[in-house]
């Protein structure tokens, strides 16, 4: 039981990073960034290449890969999404889907279709938490990183000038322009933060689990669902929802069914939407 909960919290933590980034992007720029999982996959593979080919140590590799993912994210926003600013949600969604397909298959071409693992001594060091319950050293590092990142991002949003500007655009793009906020720059900034979180999640996942070119697709779908279920207007809400999701998923696989586990979790989410259409932590938001 405790073992399943711990595994669920680790998976949920990684998912929380993805969801946090996606939630920022969707709420601030209204870009349904279906390409989010592409950044996740590439984060994992760039870390893989840096460590196995260029022999960097783990921390440097993670930092370098997060930086390069941020650069790719900024480039994508400036070259594609900025030109689609006035287009309908569907149009942007198609473009983002195209990007996800391109990212996934780019990874397939560059790194091949077999699963890889990154050599990581910390992920084979086991710590005994209780009788028969153990956790790898690296999973604890993942949890610490996730917690630190969530705290840093929410502090940034709460106290810095840029963070306040992001929240203003988040609430009302037109009015924030009236008070002199350059919304294009703010959207670029959110895109940079969001994709760097995806890259970080990818690196962390790659260091602990096996990686493959198509790992980004299911996690994109889950993150999208969680942004909705967690509710707009609440970043901590979405992060909590991701953690809970991870635990439910893990418990379902261990105790209920390993065939229908996705069906159970998605059905639970639809049920939540039915009871609270605005999300668990969401407030009723009026939109024009």
């Amino acid at each position, binding site marked *: 039981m405790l073992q399943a909960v711990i595994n669920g919290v680790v998976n949920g933590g990684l998912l929380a990073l993805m969801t946090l980034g996606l939630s920022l992007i969707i709420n601030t720029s209204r870009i349904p960034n279906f390409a989010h999982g592409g950044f996740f996959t590439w984060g994992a593979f760039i870390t893989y290449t840096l460590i196995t080919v260029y022999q960097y140590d783990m921390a440097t590799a993670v930092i370098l890969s997060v930086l390069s993912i941020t650069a790719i994210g900024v480039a994508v926003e400036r070259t594609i999404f900025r030109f689609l600013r006035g*287009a309908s949600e569907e149009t942007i969604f*198609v473009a983002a*889907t*195209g990007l996800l397909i391109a990212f996934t298959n780019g990874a397939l*071409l560059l790194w091949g279709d077999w699963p890889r693992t990154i050599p990581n001594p910390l992920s084979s060091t086991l710590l005994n938490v209780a009788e028969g319950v153990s956790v790898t050293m690296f999973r604890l590092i993942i949890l610490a990183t996730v917690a630190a990142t969530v705290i840093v991002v929410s502090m940034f949003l709460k106290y810095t000038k840029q963070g306040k500007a992001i929240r203003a655009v988040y609430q009302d793009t037109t009015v924030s322009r009236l008070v002199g906020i350059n919304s294009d720059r703010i959207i670029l900034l959110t895109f940079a933060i969001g994709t760097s979180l995806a890259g970080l999640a990818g690196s962390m996942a790659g260091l602990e689990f096996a990686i493959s070119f198509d790992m980004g697709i299911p996690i994109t779908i889950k993150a*999208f669902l969680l942004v909705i279920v967690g509710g707009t207007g609440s970043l901590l809400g979405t992060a909590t929802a991701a953690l809970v999701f991870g635990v439910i998923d893990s418990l379902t696989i261990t105790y209920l069914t390993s*065939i229908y586990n996705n*069906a159970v979790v998605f059905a639970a989410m*639809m049920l939540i939407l039915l009871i609270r*259409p605005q999300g668990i932590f969401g407030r009723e938001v009026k939109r024009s």
Partner: protein
Amino acid sequence: MSLMVFFPFITPNNYYLHLVVMMMIYSISAAGLNLMMGYLGLLPLSVAAFAGIGAFTSANLMIRYNVPFLIALLAAILLVTVIAVAIAVPLLRTRGIFYVIGTLSSQLIIYELFLNLVEITGGSIGLRGVPKPELFGYSFTSFLELYYFIFLMTAVTHSTVYLIIKSNFGRSLLAIKENEVKAISLGLNPYTHKLFASAISMAICSISGILLAHYLTHVSAENFTLLHSIDVFLMVTMGGAGTFYGPIAGAVIWTVVMETLLSFRGLRELLYGIVLVVLMLVIPKGAMGFSMPNIRKVLKFPQ
């Protein structure tokens, strides 16, 4: 139209004939989805799931109980309508991207059921030996007969869609899409309209699944994945949502793009992704919404 009738006599080989048949089957799905996308502004990503329910129902009825094709078709459409309404009742309370995600998860759940209800769907192997379609005891077995049969079914479906679009009901949907509050003040009930539209739209999509199963005589869960739902959505967007000819044009464009990319082998999927992005940058409103001012407006650097 007449080109389609005489196409079998001018085409060099059966492969092109097969492509046109697939194009017609896809255009039915696209027309069904267009009813929701173009006329209500809702995007259900569960098209493939409902096509699959239709396909497996009619295939099972024909294989196990020797039911005539027409009755199997109607029974399958009826079942799809019932399930579509049952799922739409809660989901229609949400809107926009929320609705998209809700339908997306129903697609995933139904796909998982397809994979695991082995007695009905054959699991990952699928059902083999699905009977060819027949009408009143006459079975369509040769390729040419199948072509004309599917052409007939496609024409009937598209004509029905045309009538729905031009009817009072179709106009009411547009009114609701345009301004829900005003539509209510005109005495329309948006919720029931949306419910009816979901049922009709998914029923039409199921026809394409049923035709696919009986045309290929082999059908499996892999024919009805989320990616297929997204493909249909891409067709409607490429062709132009909210127009009668849009989905048909989209199905044609999509098939041509996919076939052209086949020659690139390994690069195909990567190029497909890039083509999607470029298409959306150049023709954001689809082929039927193609106009120069539009392109200028979108390509203009904002601010």
